[in-house]
């Protein structure tokens, strides 16, 4: 029985004899493998981008909003009947388990002014914990202190968009701007988070909730808030927390089992899962389109190996006459197709990684992330293609009759 090393050398030698043909056959695999790598990279990149976006909005969050008002049978949008109060939030924080933090917010669009500049933005009256819950970071200045909210201080933290639109190159911290007609002192600037869908997360102004309720927003329902944000400890306990919050609010608002609720709870984990699965479907789709080209590469290998077996019929006859058995011939041709495919696979990985990395230079929107998993998958795929598509030609070669093969011209 022949040893593997010698077969390997013979296979390399035959591939070298037809360099151009071997290179072109491998090219099919190179294209296939690099396409799979790039597509998987883009898929992973998109998925991580979604993940990062989700985390920038804050993760494991329950958003409680007041339900819609009904005026003469006409239902209006969410929050039109303010029913949530700061007291509700405090009660939830006190009684519910698995809570990391609770924040309240109430918002309104206001015109901002500084010097001769003006800008319209959304002003959020928030509790101090809001920054933590929504993952906002301060890059410049300070966050709210307990005194700010106790003293109804007219202080504001502004987003990056507001800072650049209103202040331009001037450092906004310590400056006084007008919110509506009320002067506010800017105490901090938020770190930029970028766009989340159509919403610019940096186009905001944060002020203490107490100041907002008392001095800025005129409301017919004093003490109410638009939203209560509850950050759970982890994603596993979030749905338990959701039902707990639900029952606390039902009890506090005196709502019976069959009555319509005056609030609505949204779970960020569900939204996150939905987004993730959308991205996943999208990346599987990309990868399967790419693997079609790998399949075509495999057919190319099979084609060339069949040609090679026919061309080398006489050689096969000679080898059989001097003692090659069925396995020897089969192994030789199988190894040739396996090598073609693996060489293509390795080069394809290099091309794929370089291609995926260079996408970053061409586009900010599409990112790609290469994982070890995708490289292993691509290598495994090309090994499989080499063996699967090389088997039939090798099988055909090994079944040749030695006499007929020797006589072949």
């Amino acid at each position: 029985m022949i040893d593997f090393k010698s077969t390997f050398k013979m296979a390399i030698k035959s591939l070298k004899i037809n360099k151009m043909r071997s290179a072109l056959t491998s090219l099919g695999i190179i294209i296939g493998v690099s396409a799979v790598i790039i597509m998987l990279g883009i898929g992973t990149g998109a998925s991580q981008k979604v993940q990062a976006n989700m985390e920038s909005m804050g993760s494991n969050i329950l958003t409680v909003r007041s339900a819609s008002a009904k005026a003469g049978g006409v239902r209006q949008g969410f929050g039109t009947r303010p029913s949530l109060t700061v007291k509700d939030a405090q009660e939830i924080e006190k009684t519910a388990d698995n809570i990391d933090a609770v924040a309240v917010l109430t918002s309104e669009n206001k015109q901002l002014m500084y010097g001769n500049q003006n800008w319209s933005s959304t002003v959020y009256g928030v509790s101090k914990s809001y920054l933590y819950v929504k993952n906002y970071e301060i890059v410049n200045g300070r966050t709210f202190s307990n005194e700010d909210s106790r003293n109804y201080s007219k202080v504001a933290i502004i987003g990056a968009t507001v800072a650049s639109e209103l202040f331009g190159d001037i450092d906004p911290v310590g400056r006084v701007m007008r919110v509506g007609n009320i002067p506010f002192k800017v105490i901090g600037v938020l770190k930029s988070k970028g766009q989340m869908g159509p919403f610019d997360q940096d186009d905001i102004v944060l002020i203490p909730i107490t100041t907002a309720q008392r001095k800025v927003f005129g409301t017919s329902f004093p003490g109410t808030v638009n939203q209560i944000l509850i950050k759970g400890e982890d994603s596993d306990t979030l749905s338990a927390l959701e039902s707990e919050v639900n029952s606390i609010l039902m009890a506090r608002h005196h709502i019976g089992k069959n009555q319509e609720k005056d609030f609505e709870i949204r779970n960020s984990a569900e939204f996150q899962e939905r987004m993730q699965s959308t991205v996943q479907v999208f990346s599987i789709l990309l990868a399967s389109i790419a693997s079609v080209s790998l399949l075509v590469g495999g057919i190319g290998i099979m084609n060339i190996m069949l040609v090679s077996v026919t061309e080398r019929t006489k050689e096969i006859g000679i080898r059989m006459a001097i003692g090659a058995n069925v396995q020897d011939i089969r192994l030789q041709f199988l190894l040739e197709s396996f090598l073609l495919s693996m060489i293509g696979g390795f080069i394809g990985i290099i091309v794929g990684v370089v291609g995926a990395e260079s996408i970053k230079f061409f586009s900010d929107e599409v990112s790609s992330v290469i994982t070890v998993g995708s490289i292993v998958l691509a290598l495994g795929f090309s090994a499989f293609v080499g063996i699967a598509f090389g088997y039939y030609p090798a099988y055909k070669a090994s079944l040749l009759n030695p006499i007929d093969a020797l006589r072949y011209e």
Partner: protein
Amino acid sequence: MRKVIEVKNLIKTYQTGDTSFNALNNVSLTVEEGEFVAIMGASGSGKSTLMNMIGCLDKPTSGQYFLDGIDVSTMTSDELANIRNKKLGFVFQGFNLISRTTALENVQLPMIYAGIKESERIERAKRALKIVGLEKRESHMPNQMSGGQQQRVAIARAIVNDAPIILADEPTGNLDTKTSIEVMEFFVDLNEKHNKTIVLVTHEPDIAEYCKRVVKFRDGQIESDIVKVKNDRF
């Protein structure tokens, strides 16, 4: 002397459509160790068919074949491959070297299939090439060598695995007279100095002159079988 080749009542039938044709019709032949046998006959007389049988490349329709005392007529194709590798050395009319492969590598081939390790292979292949006087052509490709040189590489390949039997099918058919004589001298050497049993198919009486025994075929049967007295050829 030991019987190395013994065929008994060999029949090979080829079927073409409705008609069948007996290429070999009840042939029995015994070759002993150290013999140098020429098989002669017109084309279609069955001599090549017999060579294929003796060479374990083809199976008879009926009859028995003992090679070195072993019944090979019932062996599987893998077992036959092993027999060809260990017991037989082939020399063909068309040389049948593997193209774009050096002389040294061609000679190594039977040992690759015998599972011999590379260092020993190279050493033995070099020795075999030296026997046929081609030690300076080791790295030449077949297309860089003359017909005579190629046939000598083929002879080196046939003897490198120490096969006791050499089967030569018209080994001088593609060579001119001068090179034919050179090649035949090698066969005589192998027979006399290395004690190889040689069976050689030819249709040239001049070539058969080198052999000790001449078997003539006609219509699938042995017509005559003459053992010559030694040194008769000079």
